[in-house]
């Protein structure tokens, strides 16, 4: 079902922003956390993160780590926060509209 693939892709940016909003995170961490919630390949997050930075919704900084290479952390910019809140709002509307449609379809079927 290519629709499902598209849905998942569409929501990745929102997931990432919400997680980054809680605290700054690095790519690997985001990939792991998101793939626990949404069934996508972990690699799918990297293009999304790149786009968030390119669109000015996130900024990045490097932090040394005691274990392994320095980590590239993502931080939500003020614009990113506003955008995320808009998205959350739109998402809510979208879901309730579609659910409404599904309910009316299910009543018809019954």
């Amino acid at each position, binding site marked *: 079902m290519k629709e499902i693939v598209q849905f998942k892709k569409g929501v990745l940016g929102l997931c990432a922003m919400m997680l980054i909003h809680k605290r700054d995170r690095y790519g690997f961490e985001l990939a792991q956390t998101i793939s626990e919630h949404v069934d996508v390949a972990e690699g799918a997050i990297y293009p999304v993160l790149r786009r968030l930075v390119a669109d000015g919704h996130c900024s990045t900084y490097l932090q040394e780590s005691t274990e*392994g290479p320095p980590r590239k952390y993502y931080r939500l910019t003020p614009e990113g926060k506003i955008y995320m809140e808009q998205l959350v709002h739109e998402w809510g509307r979208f879901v309730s509209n579609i659910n409404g449609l599904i309910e009316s379809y299910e009543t018809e079927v019954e």
Partner: protein
Amino acid sequence: MNKQEYLALLRFYSQQLAPEVQSDLLSEVEAHFIYGEQQGKTEEQIAEELGDPIEIAKETVGPSYKAPDLSAYQEKCPTDESLNYSYSHPNYADYSGYSESEYPTQSSGLFKAKKSLFTLLSAFTLIVVGGGLLVSTGVAYFIDGPDEKVAASASVESILENVDKQLEHLEDLGELVSKEDIKDIVEASTTFAWDEEYSEFEGTHYEGVIKMGNSSKWKDLIIETDIGEVDIEFKQGDRNEIAWKAVTAPSVGERMEATQLKNDQIIFELDESDMYANYQYSFVVTLRDNYELRKLQLEQELGEINVKGGKFERVEIQMDNGILRASDISSRSMNVELENGSTEFERIDSIVNVESDNGEIKILETTKPVNIKLDLGSVNLEMKQPHNVDVKTNMGAIEIEIPQGAKGKYLAKSGLGEVEVPASYDNGTFRVNAKTDAGTIIIKE
């Protein structure tokens, strides 16, 4: 697939990115491997969790993504230059993951084996683009499976055997992609690898002129090739004549020299079964006054065709794999059939019909009706004068630019994706129908 292979594939697939963006992406993914290993995972596990590298490349590039294909790959690595390297792809060769000590330059057998594998991967890319799942499965099978054997095998022959074995595994995918299709592509690429190893090709230069003076007996020009680059340019002059130059095998060159007007046709049959990739043909056709040929017919299996100029009753082009460019052609009809490849048309003053299995289609400055049927790929059309357009693709974006102020009737339908269409006029002077099962549609001035 291990880390090195994964990163190398990702690098190959993402070559369209700006260098700094690409190296950024690669270091992120490389870091992902390191963090994963710290959690006790194997490189293979991490690679699997990351998913198909082509997907990452595709998403990072965005809608303009073009999977690097076989012909582009071959173009970039002419064999005579690359034989001295441990690896043939320029983007690939400088990748630090493959150090020279691991793949010593003196091991030419190994080099050939790797190179053939890469050719094969490129071929798989073509299928992958078409088959989605198949791509990842095909590549994974090939890489996970016989890779060590491949790296150790000294000749193309053993690779061919491995390919056959891998193909057996692919049988389960029957419903998704026809096995015959895979076989065709794999055969094409391995034959190519085979030829590279066994033919000691040194191109010989040939040239000739076919003079037809003022005679108007000549009606058709037909050129058939299997592999190579074909350039054809039509010019205005005071006589009818074809001047050609070729770098090719003697058997083909001699056949070209013997080619002349027969009945009302000139037919260049340049097929050569043990052909080498770098064959080149260029034709300069001079036509007196406004001489209109009845037919221009071009057929090719793998390579590149560039056509410029000319006036015809009809143009027929058939191409299996490669790049097709055509510009400044005037014809009553132009029919194009493509299997894999990209198409670029500019200033074609003709009704254009294109049917393609796979590839990107770009048509600029159109003046006559255009019909496009595509299984997979995006369409980009810029209209110079208002005319009817019909575009259907099973998967891919459609973008159509109409002339300023033109009033047309627009019908756009996407199964999945955004649709952006200007106000439609029921009694408009022309109509645009655009349909895709998945992808955005944009119609704009």
